[in-house]
């Protein structure tokens, strides 16, 4: 297992380097001069050549690309990606305030997605082609088609117009006021959780169906074991490994969902920070957040691989 862990860790390094290269290239292919664009701002008035030159120097944009990339990489390794062009505050300081918000939202959404997906997926498979199966399949298909930004909007409309209740805006730490905190987070988490559950439920149904047709399941039934014991003890153990993988892959999309949900419910998380940074053309912030999301997904994939290898030792050989 330790050799496998080492091999997977080494394999992650080139991926992370390419992730940083992609972000670096994307942020520098912008047509026109970034400094000119920053100085002209929303008004679109042209800045003087001297001002542009000064800002280019300040941002290090006058240096060769490889030197800019090395500085960028060094900043990432030192965990010092620089300051925001919009607020002039250190980016890490702002991220430190916002990461707990997105983390709480993501964890809550994962818990909700598993709580929805597992029972619906398992029941759908066990009662294949019955009305239970059809109801849960429609439920999951709807989750795939309903855009999170629309369900969020409808939910707000329902809460305010029908129930005359507005979810508290902003952010309160769970340590300070857990009740208010859950009121703030439950709705955005429900929206992301449902969207994620739709995919997980389909995956669970498919995996359980496959395992249900295995010989050892037939043997377990032939021994006279009750259906719940067969599913709970024999089927789930083997069916959950692929579901776990898909769940980890979905974590990446869940971060994308956080961008939308934080915008609708005005939660001051990393996703909202990214959208604000794009609207303010705050390139260092955009660059840092995009790479942060990339690193999180790579780390999650690594953790899933390790967990998978622990659950199924055969995968360590591949």
């Amino acid at each position, binding site marked *: 297992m330790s050799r496998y862990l080492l091999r997977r860790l080494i394999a992650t390094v080139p*991926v992370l380097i390419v992730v940083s290269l*992609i972000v670096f290239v994307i942020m520098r292919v912008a047509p026109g001069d970034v400094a000119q664009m920053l100085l002209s701002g929303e008004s679109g008035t042209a800045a003087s050549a001297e001002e542009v030159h000064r800002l280019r120097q300040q941002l290090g944009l006058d240096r060769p690309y490889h030197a800019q990339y090395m500085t960028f990489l060094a900043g990432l390794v030192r965990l010092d990606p620089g300051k925001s062009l919009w607020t002039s505050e250190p980016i890490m300081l702002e991220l430190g305030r916002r990461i707990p918000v997105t983390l709480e939202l993501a964890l809550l959404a994962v818990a909700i997605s598993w709580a929805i997906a597992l029972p619906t997926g398992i029941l759908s498979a066990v009662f294949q082609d019955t009305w239970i199966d059809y109801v849960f399949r429609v439920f999951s298909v709807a989750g795939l*088609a309903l855009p999170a930004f629309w369900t969020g*909007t409808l939910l*707000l*409309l329902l809460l305010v117009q029908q129930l005359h209740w507005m979810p508290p805006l902003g952010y309160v730490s769970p340590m300070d006021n857990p009740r208010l905190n859950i009121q703030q987070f439950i709705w955005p988490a429900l929206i992301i959780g449902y969207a994620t559950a739709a995919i997980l439920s389909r995956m669970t149904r498919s995996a359980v169906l496959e395992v249900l047709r295995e010989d050892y399941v037939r043997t377990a039934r032939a021994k006279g074991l009750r259906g719940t014991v067969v599913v709970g003890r024999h089927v789930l153990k083997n069916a959950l490994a692929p579901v776990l993988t898909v769940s980890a892959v979905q974590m990446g999309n869940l971060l*994308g969902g956080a961008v*939308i949900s934080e*915008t609708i419910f005005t939660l001051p998380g990393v996703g909202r920070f990214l959208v604000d940074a794009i609207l303010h053309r705050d390139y260092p912030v955009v660059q840092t957040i*995009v790479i942060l999301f990339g690193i999180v997904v790579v780390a999650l994939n690594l953790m899933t691989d390790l967990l998978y290898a622990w659950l199924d030792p055969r995968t360590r050989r591949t």
Partner: protein
Amino acid sequence: MLERGSAEGDAAARPGAGLPPESSGLIVPGVPLGRHRAPPMVWQFVRRKPMGVVGAVIVCLLVVVAVFAGGIAQYNPYQVRARLRFQPPGNAFWFGTDDFGRDVFSRVVYGARISLQIGIAAVFMGTSVGALVGLISGYFGRRTDLVIQRIMDAMMAFPTLVLALAVVAALGVSLPKVILAVALTLIPVSNRVVRSVALSVRETDYVAAARGLGGSEWRVLFSHVLPNCFAPYVVIATANLGTAILAEAALGFLGLGVPPPTPAWGSMLSGAAQGYLYRAPWMAMYPGVAITLAVFGFNMLGDAVRDVLDPRLRGR
């Protein structure tokens, strides 16, 4: 004497063989041919994939609305009417009016054109580039494969929306740039699928024979391996259409999609639609319904196409 219809040659041997002769693809003497020629395959598809048919109908309707938007829309979607702001849905304005007095129905109808345009262009661009690179990666293997797959690993590390946001942040906002941003997010998946097909096809005997006959690597690749990748390409492209429409709408919702006043569904849901949500909920309601229907239709059609073209996944 019975003859088998070519397309349904094995139909009688399959579990659905209990179907009447006209639906199992058999040509029965004494029964007019016109009744049997085309329908059996279509009829079987309708019977076996009802949700796929629902998806196909929605997609066809969407295409009709997009193509004949000028004839279907009640008014000019850009026409501002200061005195008719926030009109609720009614006879004059079926879906009501927005904060500029523009007809929401007409904007939703024209929005179909924009969504479809972006969806098809992005899917064609992203899936084709991904498939071509996957083909090269899988066929040539070794270092080419290693380098390409590490790049794909890195691209897959970005959440779809975040990658699209980064591209739009760098390039700015316009119709071609939104298409490019969405297309980029679709590359890795099609790359992986086509690569896996190319990997198995390159080991087949006929590819070895084509090489043995002196065919160059590129000729073998494009004449013998590429045609085998067509089915997975179609499956991925159809499945990605819903994703592309959703991604474009999400960008529009965040204010980074096709810029106003162009009627795009995602953009119609953002800005004023959110600001006046409680006063004029129809501004956000109808574009949302349109997005959901379009994505649902493409997802259902994509699932059915996958089931038909990839028998391993049938019934899942």
